[in-house]
């Protein structure tokens, strides 16, 4: 069995280099994943946050 979640969340602004951010992974204020592919999860564990 499988569960598919589809949801809308803030994208976050793209940081500029002037602000000291160097990579795509820095997206302050937007949605960020806390998981990796193949990771085992338990109910209640965070998969990401705004």
């Amino acid at each position, binding site marked *: *069995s*499988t*569960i*598919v*979640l*589809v*949801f*809308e*969340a*803030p*994208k*976050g*602004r*793209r940081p500029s280099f002037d602000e000291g951010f160097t990579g*795509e*992974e820095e997206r302050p*204020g*937007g*949605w960020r*994943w*806390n*998981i*990796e*592919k*193949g*990771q*085992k*999860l*338990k*109910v*209640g*564990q*965070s*998969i*990401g*946050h*705004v």
Partner: protein
Amino acid sequence: LRSALGQTKVEWKPIPVGLGIGFLGLLQLYRVQAREKRRIEEEEVRTQEREDDESEKHGCPKKRKRIRPSGPWQVQIMSTLPLKALSRLWGRFNELTIPYYLRVPGFRLYSFIFGVNLDEVAEPDLHVYPNLAAFFYRTLKPGVRPIDPNPNSIVSPADGKVIQFGTIEHGEVEQVKGVTYSLDALLGSRRPSSSGISTPTSELASRPSVSSQDRHSLGDEEVIREDEEFAQVNGISYTLPNLFSGPAKNRGDKKDTPKDQSTKSQLSSELDVTAELARSGPTSQPWWAPATSKEKGPTALYYCVVYLAPGDYHRFHSPVSWVVESRRHFAGELYSVSPYLQRTLPGLFTLNERVVLLGRWRWGFFSYTPVGATNVGSIVVNFDRELRTNSLTTDTAADRAAEQAANDGEPYSGFAEATYEGASAILRGHALTRGEEMGGFQLG
């Protein structure tokens, strides 16, 4: 060159008769085969139409054609099996009562094979479970699954494994790397007669699809295209009606009447949101208050696929605090959803029986889709007593929906839809809090 052209002798020779006859024969054979194929296809269509007419005359709904997926030989063999019947049989078998003294060794063996942690099971005495179906749908001890304290996080809906996650753009979900399908196929497209609910799918799916060059990977997350494009589809076009206002078409700038305000305050107490309000982070907004456009900013669609292995705890919970507005039941097939088949069978989630729960959360659209499988065909939703999955009567319900759509002059969307009223007319849906048990998967 001039002398070569002028002096070269041109000699004409007849094509050998045998070669000509052979060519004409092959051509004729090809024509006959093509004509025969066309005739058979036309005959099949005529037969189908006759059957449909006959069925309609006798008051029976039209039969739907079974979809035969393409794929490797394992998939082809699987597509010939009566999977739903097998699933029901499997369910019945697992409901047989196990002799009292065999229960503990049997469940311990099952736990050993599938990695069940018996220390977490709510009922320590395994004799209590009369059969495997009951043990499979076990509950856990309170407190063994703490909910993440961050109110702005989405928590895992179930015990399982992350198969895929990422960003959706242009209405395409990637099942596994390289296999995509549209959101319309997964969630169902928008229907004008529905209760004002607009999924993001209709707008997004109509956009041109992305080429493979546009896809790139950001760590483990799949991003299908750069962000700038998404601003064009972001916003009101797919935003669900807000919690405390009417449908989008009626929303306008209407101010709350005193009656509305009193109902809102009553609702707040009904939902007991005070605790949520106290820890709702820097915005100091309760979960049910939709984010303002300034606070929300540009948004994107994200997806996550969680696979539940046979030994996992098979009840599922709400990942966020949200309101479920409607449910769409797609009575499809029941292929296995093992990671292997997810890789080999394109669009597996759009073929299988599934229950799509559509609603909204603080940041906009939210959908939750439990997808059934051969061994766990029954999906239970606690707040939906009318839902029957993997049932002999399922086809009848779907056929009734098809008949209703035909009567209303609308195309049949392939699912049976129900809307939730909720405790209050204003809420317009069933409210769920983070970590609340929503239902589960049962054997067969």
